[in-house]
C-alpha cells in the first residue's frame, strides 16, 4: 500500500499532520483490502456450502425449476390466480397414482361386462338363427 508523503516539508507541525493523514490513508486502504478479502472468502464459503455446481450436475432440471420458482416469487406471482391453477393441477397430478388403480379396475369390470353381454347376445342370435334364413349383415362384418 502506498503511503502519502509530502514532498515539501514546511515545519514540524505540518509534517506531523501529513504523517497522520498518510497513516489514516494507509489504514483505510488496508481495511478496505481486508474487507474485500473477507467478502471474497465469504462468497466462496457460501458457494461451497450451497454447492450450486454440484447440485446442477446432479439434478439439472430440478435446479432450473427451483430457479424458475424463485424468479416467479420474486416477480410477485405468488398470490395470483395462476398460482392457484398450478396448485390445482399439481394436486390432481399427485392424486392420479391413487386414482389410477381404481380407474383401471372400473375399466376392466366394464370391459368384462361388455364381453359377457356380447357373448350372450351372440349365443342367443346363434340359437335363433338355426333353421332361419341367413341375414344380409350377419356376424363377421362390421359396418
Amino acid at each position, binding site marked *: 500500500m502506498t503511503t502519502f508523503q509530502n514532498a515539501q516539508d514546511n515545519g514540524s507541525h505540518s509534517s506531523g499532520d501529513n504523517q497522520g493523514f498518510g497513516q489514516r490513508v494507509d489504514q483505510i486502504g488496508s481495511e478496505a483490502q481486508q474487507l474485500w478479502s473477507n467478502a471474497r472468502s465469504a462468497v466462496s464459503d457460501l458457494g461451497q456450502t450451497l454447492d450450486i455446481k454440484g447440485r446442477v450436475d446432479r439434478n439439472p432440471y430440478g435446479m*432450473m425449476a427451483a430457479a*424458475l420458482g424463485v424468479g416467479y416469487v420474486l416477480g410477485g406471482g405468488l398470490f395470483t390466480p395462476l398460482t392457484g391453477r398450478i396448485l390445482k393441477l399439481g394436486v390432481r397430478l399427485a392424486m392420479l397414482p391413487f386414482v389410477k388403480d381404481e380407474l383401471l379396475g372400473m375399466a376392466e369390470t366394464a370391459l368384462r361386462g361388455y364381453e359377457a353381454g356380447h357373448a350372450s347376445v351372440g349365443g342367443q342370435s346363434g340359437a335363433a338363427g338355426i333353421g332361419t334364413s341367413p341375414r344380409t349383415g350377419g356376424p363377421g362384418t*362390421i359396418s
Partner: protein
Amino acid sequence: MEMNPQQIQDRAREIQERIVPQIEEARRNLVDLNTRVVSFIRANPGTCLIGAIAAGFLIGKLASRR
C-alpha cells in the same frame, strides 16, 4: 363402408408399420435433445440459473399484472 375383421387387422398392421418408425424417430430425437440440454446446463450452470430466475421473474410479473 363395410370391413371384416381381417381387413381391420390388416389396416391396423399397416398403420402400425407406418407409425412405429416415426414414433421411434421422435423418441430418438427427444433423447438427443435431452442429452444436449442437460450437457448445456452442466457446462453453464450460472447462466442457466440466472436465465431461469429471469424467466420466472417475467412470468411472475405478467401473472401479477392480470
